[in-house]
């Protein structure tokens, strides 16, 4: 059993290597980085210089804020669309339900890159490029979210809903007062899945965003690298640390939930 820990520790260090060097370089002065020494621990600390440079040259906090707005906006609309639809598909009989469910299954098959071109043309035609709307709108409808909630609500006992109807609730109040409070496990899992994928997304922001104003953290790193850093790896790593930190911190605080969220959404997707 000691061998297990030893092997895991070795592999763990290997996986953590990029983080260790990233953090180390972010507090080293440029001269030291260029000496390419193998020592992780800096001889001289240049943290203030590197991080100061990043904070002075690019609006880091603004990027992070954009990330929050975009991920939050996407998630809000995804839930708003998917929770009632998922409930209706799981528990209500209405004309067109079969078609609607077929559409959801079809939607599951289409990667988000496929509708990107026409959406770009449309956004450009409506003058919406480089706006929060352009960043958020394409992802507000998630076939996966509808599917996930449908599966989850299908497992709710019918008797619970019958009891609510006997108590005089209409379908809408059932959604808000009975179904939603029971949807939390699925909603948290989906929220983690959604935020992780959109926080990290580069493809779509790269297409629709042009300046700093609406840049997400991923774009922020890219901009800083091409415009400011050049070969200044210390500052570059400082920027990378700053942009990586929020989600990593959230993960470390709620590790279990993250892992479970990704595992359940992963296995159902």
């Amino acid at each position, binding site marked *: 059993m000691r061998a297990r820990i030893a092997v895991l520790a070795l*592999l763990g260090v290997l*996986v953590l290597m*990029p983080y260790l060097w990233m953090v180390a370089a972010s507090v080293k002065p440029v001269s030291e980085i260029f000496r390419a020494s*193998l020592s992780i621990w800096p001889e001289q600390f240049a943290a203030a210089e590197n991080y100061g440079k990043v904070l002075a040259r690019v609006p880091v906090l603004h990027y992070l804020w954009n990330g929050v707005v975009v991920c939050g906006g996407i998630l809000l609309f995804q839930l708003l669309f998917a929770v009632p639809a998922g409930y209706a598909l799981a528990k209500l009989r209405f004309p067109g339900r079969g078609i609607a469910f077929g559409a959801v299954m079809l939607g599951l098959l*289409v990667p988000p890159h496929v*509708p*990107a071109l026409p959406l770009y043309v449309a956004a450009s035609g409506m003058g919406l490029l480089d706006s929060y709307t352009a960043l958020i709108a394409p992802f507000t409808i998630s076939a996966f979210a509808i599917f996930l909630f449908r599966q989850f609500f299908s497992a709710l006992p019918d008797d619970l809903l019958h009891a609510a109807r006997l108590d005089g609730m209409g379908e809408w109040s059932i959604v808000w007062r009975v179904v939603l409070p029971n949807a939390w496990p699925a909603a948290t899992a989906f929220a983690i899945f959604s935020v992780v994928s959109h926080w990290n997304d580069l493809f779509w922001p790269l297409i629709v965003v042009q300046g700093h104003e609406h840049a997400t953290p991923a774009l922020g790193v890219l901009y800083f690298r091409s415009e400011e850093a050049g070969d200044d790896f210390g500052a570059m790593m400082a920027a*990378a640390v700053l942009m990586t930190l929020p989600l990593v911190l959230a993960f470390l605080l709620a590790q279990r939930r993250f892992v479970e969220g990704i595992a359940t959404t992963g296995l159902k997707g």
Partner: protein
Amino acid sequence: MRRLAGEAVAGALMTLPAGIAYLLLLLLPTLATVLLAFTDYELGATALGWIGLDNFREMLADRGFGVSVRNTLVYVGLVTPISILGGLGLALLVEAGAKGRAFFRAVFFLPVVSLTVAMAAAWQYLLHPTIGPVNAALRAMGLGTPFWLSSSDTVLLSLAAIGVWESIGFNMVLFMAGLTAIPRELYAAAEVDGARGGFDRFRLVTWPLLGPTTLFVLTISMIRSLRVFDTVAVLTQGGPNKASEVLLFTMYQQGFTYLRLGYSAAITLVFLAVVLALMWVQTQVLDKRVHYA
């Protein structure tokens, strides 16, 4: 009767917002992509011409596209098996004991939640030919120092290594979920039936019962690695000399750098066709062999 009518109205109303969004943001644009693929539309052009299969013919003739497809296949061929076997190995190793389980799970999962672009920058420093720690270590050991991301011989390999690093923890978590679903009593039965060691137990219980998980991880890994874009866009821009040109990056460049939307849409369709084919293989061919009901 009244309740049924009410139910129908409520059901329709509840699916309506999602339905409209689905139509406008998913279905119509996807169909538009399909149509675009048969036109010569360029962004900003006022007219578009129907050119049939010309885009696809051009693709077949285009050496760059061929390279892109080949690179993508090599990348998928490297990342998928390594990250699956690695993820399975890690899952077995982490689950084998109680000590350090949560800690190591978090360590290996960390890359999944890390900003890909930022980590790509970190990898760029790590793999830098002259100042990077990897080459510094190789130099110290007296070994050769490749130009990792800037040589056409190693660039795809380096990107694949980053890809494995990114997805191995994701696969591990999926395998761990699969492992916990295996009933403990089956292992006890295997012991009583004469399984003598870890390998016997793995062959008799773990591997067959992980079948559905493995198939799923295989499909999702292939699709995820097929979608490789971020690292290429950040680190190599498809270079050097198209050695790291991959499908989605080609599509992006054709569409948004050269503004050839028709051609880009045709590439997107190829991408979609591959994704659909993989899913079809999963559901039709392999599902029957791993679900035992």
